[in-house]
């Protein structure tokens, strides 16, 4: 593992000015991604995870949003970089796949054309060579009859096949980082497993790092090396995946773990986290999770907690409760009930 992380995000904020107020979709987010690592970014809808993902590629329109903070990829600054610089990063160094492959692929161009195009943007090769590479990638991601599939349109494929094609398109220039924004949400459960396996396999084979954005803790547990838990635009906890599931150090994570339905046990009612996420225009002054937190006290309403070590150096959490107290609560109250 290299010392310098491949991707360094520090204090990232993405704000959208709207007539109704300033929407703080991402507010002071920090994390690292090391080369070859699979980082899961997990959170509810509206937690800012997709916005953060797009910000890494500089995909937010400068006129409609304000992005501050630092995003460094292999030492190069993304925030505030010129459009031409960003263009060279996109696709060749950092690639992104999206949630709905049907709407994310152009309906009027063939799959093959779109793949070739992705390749030729960053590589000066002939059409034939690009085509060959595209077919190669299609075969690699498990699409049968790749040569014929080259000339097919997106709507002719099934959901799983489309997502494979998107992955092929993303990896065709061999990027160092793949950002996968909820890649399995729109797919059947069985296909989900296949796609996740594919992402994992390709990450191993190509050595690319992956930022896997999802709302599904199960996906995270299956596939990721490290996890970032986001809530209302902020990171509330980040840790090694094993650490997160065995020793979670944030009330929000406890709530998340508690709300996962289990097939292998009989239980009473489902236990969601009561309440609603806060408005991103009207964020509470203190801890953003405080209104729904069963362990909130004094300073939680007024002071925003900092991200600090919780247990081990690699494990960070944002909570006012002292670490030993949290470990106690976890051991005695939460864990036994799960």
């Amino acid at each position, binding site marked *: 593992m290299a010392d310098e992380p491949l991707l360094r995000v520090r204090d990232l904020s993405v704000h959208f000015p709207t007539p109704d107020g300033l929407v703080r979709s991402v507010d002071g987010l920090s994390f690292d991604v090391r080369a070859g690592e699979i980082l899961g970014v997990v959170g509810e809808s509206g937690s800012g995870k997709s916005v953060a993902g797009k910000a890494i*590629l500089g995909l937010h329109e400068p006129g409609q949003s304000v992005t501050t903070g630092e995003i460094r990829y292999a030492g190069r600054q993304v925030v505030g970089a010129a459009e031409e610089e960003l263009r060279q990063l*996109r*696709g060749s160094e950092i690639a992104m796949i*999206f949630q709905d492959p049907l709407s994310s692929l*152009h309906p009027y*161009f063939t799959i093959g054309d779109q793949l070739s195009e*992705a390749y030729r943007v960053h590589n000066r090769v002939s059409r034939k060579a690009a085509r060959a590479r595209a077919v190669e990638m299609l075969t690699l991601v498990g699409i049968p009859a790749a040569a014929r599939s080259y000339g097919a349109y997106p709507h002719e494929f099934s959901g799983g096949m489309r997502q494979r094609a998107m992955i092929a398109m993303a990896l065709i220039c061999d990027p160092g980082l793949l950002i996968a924004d909820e890649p399995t949400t729109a797919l059947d459960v069985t296909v989900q497993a296949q796609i996740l396996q594919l992402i994992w396999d390709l990450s191993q084979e190509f050595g690319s790092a992956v930022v896997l954005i999802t709302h599904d803790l199960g996906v995270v547990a299956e596939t990721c090396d490290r996890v970032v838990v986001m809530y209302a635009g902020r990171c509330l906890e980040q840790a090694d995946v094993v650490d997160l599931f065995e020793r979670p150090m944030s009330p929000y994570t406890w709530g998340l773990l508690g709300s996962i339905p289990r097939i292998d046990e009989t239980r009473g009612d489902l236990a969601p986290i009561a309440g609603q996420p806060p408005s991103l225009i009207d964020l509470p002054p203190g801890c953003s999770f405080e209104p729904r937190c069963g362990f909130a006290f004094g300073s939680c309403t007024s002071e925003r907690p900092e991200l600090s070590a919780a247990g081990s150096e690699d494990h960070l959490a944002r909570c006012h409760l002292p670490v030993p107290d949290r470990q106690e609560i976890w051991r005695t109250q939460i864990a036994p009930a799960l």
Partner: protein
Amino acid sequence: MIRYAANRVLGALGVLLVASVVTFSIFQLLPRVTKVDMAFYYTGRNTSPAQAAAVSERFGFDKPVWEQYWTWLSGIVTGRDLGDGVSAVHCAAPCLGYSFRQNRSVTEMLVQAFPVTLSIVIGAAVLWLAGGVAAGVIAAARRGSWFDRGSTVISLLGVSIPEFFSGMLLIYALTAGPSWLRWYSGGITYVPFTQDPVRWAVNLLPVWFCLAFLITAVYTRWTRAAMLETMSEDFITTAKAKGLRRRTVVGKHGLRAVIPTVVTLAGLDLGALLGGVIIVEYLFSFPGLGRLAYDGISTKDLPVIMGTTLFAAFLIVVANVVVDACYAILDPRVRHGG
């Protein structure tokens, strides 16, 4: 694909049939409403009751309505003899009627008028398609710029200024206005292409601008709206994430997605286009289909009215079928859905 085409053609024939029924029945209304004998509309003279009765018998006005309809309809396909004996008139197929006032078959009049209207429509179409779509794309790409705001203003003006007003303004300016504008001091008349191509085009320019101004405005607004909507689609984000130039994202991915909508728009308001043509031909005194129809109406020449109405319906239906075919070519999703 074949089934789709067959479906559309069948539908078109159905529409034509209904149109013929409607045309026929409405114009049977005329004599009943005006309490003037049908004979008058066919002979163009004030006939005495005895003459009227004789004419009625000759032309079969005393026969039941559906029989008259059938005679008329089948006459369109096979040709027909009007009247009998020495003064019979043979109306060759396709027989759309015979105007006794002008002593010519309606078909002949249509054939003569059609090239004029075609010249007007095609020239205007080139203008509004090129101008309107281009303006709409640029306006959407440079949203909020001077060009965008300017084109919005001009578009709004364009849809608010009807052809008869802009036409009168143009004619006044070009024939009787200030000397530097008086380019057509000799008047604006139609010159057939075969007679003098240059003059044909020069004299058609004011007509083209008059007709196109309104429609260009509509196209600009629609294209701009369609482009703006398209630009917020997922596949545009994907295109950007691939590292494509902004020019390519808008001009290739964006525009291609919008073209079917624009084509549909072309087919949508052909009835309105015909209306515009009637007004323009009336104002500029160009001897096209519109003028023919109008003259027929003002002289209450029933065969002319019926013939031109049916022919206009035919043109619209054919144009709609052509537009549908284009749509199928441009949108692959339609081809496979049927």
